[in-house]
């Protein structure tokens, strides 16, 4: 782009590319340092003590880190599957049908994206603790917070993100294709299955990967929705930082970072299969959500 809008070798081009490099350095220099010092054989982060893999070995040997990693993965997978189904259905309803209260529903769907994490967290905390109390009073059920409540809270915020992404694809899709399918005697289900679904599949995949990433990253909502035996990896890492940052935290961060990068790349790749538009709005929303 720079080459086309500014004359080659001009000051503008030079300044623009310089700025771009500076911005990238600002973004990625801390990450490079993080990765580098995860291999440092010195307990103090920021002091190079020679190359070692011992922090990664410690990560593998650390039973609580391993447990919390598994909780994180299970929560992420389950909440993603459910929120993708519900989010896609919501997107279809809003984009393809007209019904009473649609505008209200539409506006409310954006709410979990907009409201601060801590507000969402307190809502979830009250909802679950009161819900458990009521379930016990009315039905005599003995419920506790834990894996299920974390998963439900992740589904709650992920539905919005999935539906936003899927809607972006739906609105870019030619509705006449569906009408053509119906004209050719396909029923509603068949026209969805063989015409609509293949076209919005990249949107669904993008939404799913986004949901997976958000679920793996979340700390605040998770902390307030969790119960005995359900500490997730990011929550545990935050707890560990209280004892000082050691390269073990770098090693854990590198592993989470690698997983997140793979997911984001996959997400963007599927998003941009046909249109670049959704990818950009997706990126902006995702950054706002995770507070970065």
């Amino acid at each position, binding site marked *: 782009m720079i080459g086309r809008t500014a004359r080659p070798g001009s000051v503008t081009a030079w300044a623009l590319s310089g700025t771009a490099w500076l911005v990238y350095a600002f973004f990625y220099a801390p990450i490079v340092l993080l990765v580098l010092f995860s291999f440092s054989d010195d307990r103090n982060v920021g002091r190079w003590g020679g190359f070692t893999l011992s922090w990664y070995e410690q990560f593998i040997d650390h039973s609580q880190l391993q447990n919390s990693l598994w909780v994180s993965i299970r929560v992420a997978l389950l909440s993603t599957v459910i929120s993708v189904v519900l989010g896609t259905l919501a997107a279809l309803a809003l984009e393809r049908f007209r019904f009473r209260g649609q505008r209200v529903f539409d506006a409310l769907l954006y709410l979990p994206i907009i409201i601060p994490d801590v507000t969402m967290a307190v809502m979830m*905390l009250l909802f679950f*603790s009161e819900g458990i109390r009521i379930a016990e009073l009315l039905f005599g059920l003995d419920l506790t*917070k834990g894996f299920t409540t974390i998963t439900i809270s992740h589904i709650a915020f992920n539905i919005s993100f999935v539906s936003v992404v899927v809607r972006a694809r739906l609105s870019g899709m030619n509705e006449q294709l569906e009408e053509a399918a119906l004209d050719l005697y396909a029923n509603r289900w068949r026209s969805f299955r063989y015409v609509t679904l293949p076209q919005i599949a990249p949107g669904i995949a993008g939404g799913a990967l986004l949901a997976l990433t958000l679920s793996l990253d979340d700390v605040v909502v998770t902390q307030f929705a969790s119960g005995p035996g359900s500490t997730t990896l990011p929550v545990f890492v935050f707890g560990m930082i209280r004892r000082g940052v050691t390269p073990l935290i770098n090693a854990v961060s590198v592993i989470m970072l690698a997983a997140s990068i793979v997911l984001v790349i996959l997400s963007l790749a599927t998003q941009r299969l046909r249109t670049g538009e959704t990818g950009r709005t997706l990126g902006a929303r995702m950054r706002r959500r995770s507070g970065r």
Partner: protein
Amino acid sequence: MRPTPMRRLLAVLVAMTLLAAACAGEEESAVAADCEVGQTDGDLNLYNWAEYIDPDLVDAFAAEHGIEMTVDVYDSNEAMQPIISAGNSGYDLIVPSDYMVAILIAGEDIQLLNKDAIPNIANISADFSDLVYDPAGDYSVPYQWGTTGLAVDTAVVGTDFPRSWSIVFDPSFADQYAGRISLLNDPRETLGAALKYLGYSLNTTDTGELEEAKELVSEARGRVAAFDTDQADELLTTGETAIAHGYSGDMFTQFLETDDPSRYVYFVPEEGGTRWIDNMAIPHDAPNPCTAHTFINWILDAENGAALSNYNYYSTPNAAALDGLEQELLDFVADPAVIPGGVGSLEEIQDTGDFEINYTDAFIEAVG
């Protein structure tokens, strides 16, 4: 462990939100759980700071009593409190810090302990009786503790210096180390140090006293290399600073990382300083309170208490456990030179309620 101003603010916001729900809650009678010594009434769900208990101890307790035990972690008192306060957290035992115990008692979030079920409470050192946040120990039992004081690099400062806050606040001494001193980036700790040097309580709610402390910190600013909490210990051992205001546990573990730990000295100045105490307490709606009592009694045992400290390297309030401590830890914990003013000179930071904002403002003005 140490609170931060932002966390306090968060706690206030969350607490206000929770108030409505709490009002609707049912009345709890103030009677301790009916438990026998060693009795278990189910599994144990511990809610604790990260890496604060040896996983081997957890396994040992579970095996000994034939129960399952889970450990979940929180990163601040302020994150834990609303979760317990809202109810139905599922946790049987929590480890709040001193000032948070007072808040939890006031909110009726923790239950009375049945001391008959905890005979090992007799092992707690007399230094921990009559605590300001829970005077009779009805609700909480000390778990681990530590102090805030000064660490000095004797290779730079030598060993012949006053064990006093004057080495950072008195210009006639401190100016020779200008640019090589670090103070904590924490309003209550750093203003508290100045208040102690001036002979006041570090929990003062007197604006005049606070103003004097502010002036002192403001004057010290010129010779301070950094107001830093997280890396104060590293700055000292890497030679960036020669005198560092910091936490006993952090300093002690950091000294041991160096080639020559004896080069560094940690002490609480004779005028006094901060003592923090983390405590075991049982949430008001703990599913298995008897197992929780049994665990408290078990950890207060001499052997288990020593194992706890040998893992997390903080000081133990358990007098019977001292003999079982690793030598280097015992030397540090039992050395009278660490607290020359005696335990009586120590104070816990208390929640000053509405006055808290004055500390924050004064610190921001002093640090500039």
